[in-house]
């Protein structure tokens, strides 16, 4: 570990939203870009809110959205200016401390999960996601990967689909037939 690393609290080991990830007196890599994106997005939302009903009346459908987005614009601009003035942190890089390859890959996989969920269905998409993610992150044997991913998926499916009867996109898996077979199995004696 180099000296620069030790200056800032171990790179926020396991930082969570409960403990803010920034530093009070320095700017982390990418922080300025992020503040800029937030400010731009706030401006866009303000424009969008203005489009709802304009300045027609004080109590129009667009007034609350406009007020909130105006607050967002003002605060994000001040944050942007303040962030720009701070000195950059030494010894941190975007690729190592902010967005490592694994984080980008997993984020992309989450997006892919959302896209594939409807066409492929919950079971096949989740199985695919879990197997790839667990194999990639744990780097353990295929037996471990398959048993953990399929095992947890079956457990979740039983709890949500069978116990709580939450409907999930069936996709290519003939899920309804499974449920029917299981129902027949349990009610077979009664009928």
């Amino acid at each position, binding site marked *: 570990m180099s000296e620069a690393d030790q200056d800032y609290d*171990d790179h926020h080991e396991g930082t969570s939203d*409960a403990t*803010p990830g920034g530093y009070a007196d320095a700017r982390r890599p990418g922080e300025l870009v992020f503040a800029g994106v937030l400010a731009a997005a706030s401006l866009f939302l303000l424009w969008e*809110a203005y489009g709802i009903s304009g300045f027609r009346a004080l109590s129009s459908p667009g007034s*609350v*959205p406009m007020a909130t987005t105006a607050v967002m614009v003002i605060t994000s601009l001040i944050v942007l200016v303040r962030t720009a003035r701070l000195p950059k942190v030494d010894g941190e890089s975007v690729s190592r401390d902010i967005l*490592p390859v694994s984080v980008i890959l*997993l984020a992309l996989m989450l997006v892919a999960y959302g896209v594939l969920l409807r066409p492929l269905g919950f079971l096949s998409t989740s199985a695919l996601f879990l197997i790839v993610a667990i194999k990639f992150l744990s780097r353990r044997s295929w037996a471990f990967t398959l048993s953990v991913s399929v095992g947890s998926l079956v457990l979740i499916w039983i709890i949500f689909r069978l116990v709580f009867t939450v409907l999930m996109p069936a996709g290519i898996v003939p899920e309804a037939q499974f449920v029917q077979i299981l129902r027949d199995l349990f009610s077979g004696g009664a009928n």
Partner: protein
Amino acid sequence: MAFLTVFTQPQLLLLVGLGTFAGVYVGAIPGLSVTMAVSILISFTFSWDVYPAISLMIGIYMGGVYGGSRTAILLNIPGAPSAIATAMDGYPMAKRGEAGQAIGTTTVMSFFGGFIGIGVLALAAPLVSDFALRFQPRDYMLLAVLGILLVGSLSTCSLLKGIFAGAFGIAIGAVGMDPLTFTSRFTFDIPLLRGGISFIAVMIGMFGVSEALLQLHHVNSPRGYRGINVTYPYKERAAGMVRKDDPMVAAIGAVNTVLFQPDGPVGLNTDYTGFMAAYRGARGQASPGICCLIGTGGVGRAIAFGLLALDATELRLVDRDLAKADALAVELSAARPDIHIAVESDASVAARGATGLLNGTPVGMVGYGGTPLPAPAMKGAEWIFDAIYTPVNTPFLTDARSMGLDAISGYELFFFQGVHAWAHFSGLALDEAALRRSLQEASEVA
């Protein structure tokens, strides 16, 4: 009185308990809300009597509201909206290893809070309902302002970012149709957004996904530890789980320091090197001579191998459990066939003619007391070592000093095993004198 019915019918209490148990798990699963669980339950309880049905539902409800705190504390993913604040305090505690305390506090506080709530409800329900009916849009507005003010007070680091986040939250809440005029707000012509963004989706995304992505930073460095120090009674178990590069460490079969190397964990034993450093510190290059070691378990094993490495001329092992001493003697002979190893059951007999006397038993420790060897039996020895370091001055050491022998305290072993472990962990030298001073000061404060 209907209120007391519950306490006269044990099966009702049982149903409350069962409901609470199930509710904790329902509440712990994000996305499964308590309201949902209770409404699913209605299909079961519809045909039941009114008391059992309500008992079960109350149990599920109470358990569910509390259950959301479990995932909030352990995973930083609130299982229910009410647990978001729990995550803020509880998760940092869990990371410090105080998850048990956090869960305990939440449990106790939920219990009392729940009872206060029930009490207020029971006593004030008529008043509250009158009050609630008089709630006007103006009052909802004030309530919302109160919420925004709370956001400001909770965001301790940056008020600006807190206000931004609060406004952003309101903007997310505004997505969809305006409830009065049915104008679309922030829907970007996507039909799905017209129904608004559900609270659960926002919560999972903001808390769950962000936490999962943050955890990825550390996924391949187990907690970022360079190594660990292992203590009684896990030294033998740890030895079985690591690679032992040093044949002496393999022979000892106990490990007190583990280094996480890129190619797997490596076990080291700084008890044994620490003992050697303690000996050299006190007696320099002088040979240990004929040594009598009392106690052959735990630290005794490390000391015995240390004596071999220090080239003792003869080693006499004393233990009440002769089989244990015999087993160690066989292992020691295998490691150094040139050194004579003997086994004795009586310490006084073994001490006769020995140069060094060593205690590896807990005799003399705080709460144990006594001495492993009576003072007259120490006659003729040159040096003694006591593995015990609480207290620093045992009767065994005091006897030896009063007879003019070189007496080495177990504190030295304790000190040097730490110094050596540090050297393994960091690869850096250490100011031993400064460490001694600060340990001295720390123990005086304690």
